[in-house]
């Protein structure tokens, strides 16, 4: 095998370079990771991204403010509602618009449903990566109900386009709150079922405890947000720190982990789903009557200035930095993508682990390539 010898990238070492992806079952899209392995041990990993780059930020610059909303749907396509929420939040604050309370509550319900939907995808694919295929179908079954609710509300299931600057485009349809309430009432039992499959399972514990550990200080240094940061024990949630919409009127907890490993992040997300259920229940109970759209001018024209607004997306802090020159189009609309910044810590998390652990870590970071590449 002379030709094999010649093509070894490191002829003198025992290391081997593996190109993971961009077509790989476990990279959640078109992520490519160049891994240098010594046997099965990862010496270094280098994520290569950009395969899904669509120039969303450039496209934003030619759209009107409401026209950008459908484009945000396509960034983190598992959480379109929170993307919409972050964008319209930024523009509303630039314009000084106050959202009517009913619209704010509807937004919260939609966002929390989206958080559950996103976490169900995460759980399904994360478990699938670690080898348990069945949770995927159970979680998707629940997600399907959420998508049905979205379809009833705004007519789309995935790319929702369900918020507008100044409020909500439509009121809730007849009987929607009842169906939503019924769904969130039965959800905790489903979550308990998923937990019975995984939480105590010895294989699951072996695969996740102590894998991809990051300390709280390091997590802040690497800019992690969302469940990866909370899993390390930092009590940090935009919904509590900078309450937007009406999050200051509802009661919920921020779950945090202790060790910052994959298992803690798993527990944090499971608890977050329960907290979301709690928030939705309170929102449904408090849902005020009234208009869903504030009085905004037909042509949206924020004043000259710049504003950064972020929401707690399912993946982490999702921020929009809007710069306006006083015209109808955003001069610059920059996204602070949570996945992009969380993925950056991947080499830090996997160094010294085995290849199988890298799969678990990619799963636990809960990345969506649409948001990373934009």
């Amino acid at each position, binding site marked *: *095998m002379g*030709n*094999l010898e010649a093509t070894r990238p490191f002829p003198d070492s025992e290391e*081997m370079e*593996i190109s993971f992806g961009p077509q*790989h*079952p*476990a990279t959640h899209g078109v992520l490519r990771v160049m891994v240098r392995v010594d046997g*099965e041990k990862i010496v270094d990993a280098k994520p290569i991204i950009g395969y899904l780059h669509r120039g969303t930020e450039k496209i934003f610059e030619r759209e009107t403010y409401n026209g950008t909303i459908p484009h945000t749907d396509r960034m983190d396509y598992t959480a379109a509602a929170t993307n919409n929420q972050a964008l319209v939040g930024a523009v509303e604050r630039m314009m000084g618009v106050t959202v009517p309370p009913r619209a704010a509550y509807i937004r919260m319900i939609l966002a929390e449903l989206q958080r559950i939907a996103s976490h169900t995808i995460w759980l399904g694919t994360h*478990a*699938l*990566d*670690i*080898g*348990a*295929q*069945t949770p*995927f*179908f*159970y979680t998707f*079954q629940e997600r399907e109900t959420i998508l049905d609710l979205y379809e009833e509300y705004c007519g789309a299931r995935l790319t929702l386009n369900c918020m507008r600057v100044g409020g909500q485009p439509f009121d809730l349809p007849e009987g929607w709150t009842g169906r939503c309430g019924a769904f969130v009432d039965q959800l905790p039992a489903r979550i308990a079922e998923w937990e019975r*499959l*995984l939480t105590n*399972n010895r*294989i*699951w514990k*072996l*695969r996740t405890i102590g894998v991809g550990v990051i300390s709280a200080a390091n997590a802040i240094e690497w800019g992690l947000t969302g469940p990866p940061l909370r899993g390390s024990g930092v009590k940090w949630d935009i919904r509590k720190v900078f309450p937007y919409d009406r999050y200051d009127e509802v009661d919920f907890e921020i779950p945090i982990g202790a060790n910052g490993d994959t298992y803690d992040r798993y527990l944090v997300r499971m608890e977050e789903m329960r907290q979301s259920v709690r928030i939705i229940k309170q929102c449904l109970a408090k849902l005020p009557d009234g208009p869903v759209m504030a009085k905004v001018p037909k042509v949206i024209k924020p004043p000259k200035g710049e504003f950064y607004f972020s929401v707690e997306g399912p993946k982490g802090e999702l921020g929009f930095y809007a710069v306006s020159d006083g015209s109808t189009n955003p001069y610059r609309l920059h996204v602070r993508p949570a996945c992009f910044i969380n993925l950056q810590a991947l080499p830090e998390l996997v160094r010294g682990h*085995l*290849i*199988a*652990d890298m*799969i678990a870590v990619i799963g636990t970071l809960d990345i969506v390539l649409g948001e990373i590449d934009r």
Partner: protein
Amino acid sequence: MGSPWIAFLVVPLVKIVVILLVVILMAAYLSYFERKILAYMQIRIGPNRVGPRGWLQPIADALKLFVKEDIIPSRAEKFVYIVAPALITAPALVVFSVIPFGADTTFFGLLKQPIPPYLTDINIGILFILGVSSVGVYGVILGGWASNNKFSLMGGLRSAAQLVSYEVPMGFSVIAVLLMAGSLSMVKIVEAQKQAGVWFIFPGIVAFFIYFVCGIAETNRNPFDLPEAESELVAGFHTEYSGMKWAFYFLAEYANMVVISSVATVLFLGGWLRPFPNVAALAFLDVIPPFIWFAAKVGFFLFCYIWFRGTFPRYRFDQLMALGWKVLLPVSLANLLVVALGVLLMGGAR
């Protein structure tokens, strides 16, 4: 039986053909049942488009694999690449020659005198099975290496380590049964259970457990499916294989599952025997022919295989090794000691 030629040549030939056909069909339909059962556990309904309720799905799959383009990567080691699937499939099929599917039978009066439905009963049957089936690992290693693909290579290496490690505790758990049976012959082992009046699973529960865990590991099935861990190694050692060569790997995997289940049935569940074979009160169960008993027990094991696949996550490579060497091996050794002491105290093997 007229001429000795018939007994010597024709009868075994017929048996070989029948067993081969049955095993291959079984492997194909095992894939169908696996898909169906997994689907049912995952609140889906599985294949249901080809034929009534999808019954012809395995046939359609086989046809598709036959006519599929057979790709050999240009950088592959051609000879080994082609031979490797045969190397894993042949042992898996050979092993069926010594598995006793049932007691001597006249096939419902078809024959004048009862003949054994299995091919042969050699006096070192279980040794033969262990020996031949471990040849199969060469197919995996060589196939993974010859593909000249890093994922395949890692799958092959994982498989090699895994099979070697789990042979050891598996062997010890089998020895525990052999101590109780006092014979290496598969038929004798079943008969020993009839004499003892109890399946060996009851005295050998620990051995049974170890055997089954090792069996799952040997067949590369979930939760030990590291060599072909889809999310890590794409498809492991058979990443580059396609068409019929891939079908051979597939066939071998399912045939191996049947082998492991059959051996478990023979060793621990009394082969073709009904439950409590010496209890006269249960004699009405004898209306069910022995072969059905055997098939039902094998079916139970296969269902467990699929059930496990539908439930458990996958071990990591080092954890798998740790489980094999640090848990199963000591436990199987201790169990061997206990069983040996028990056999000694109870009067020894017959």
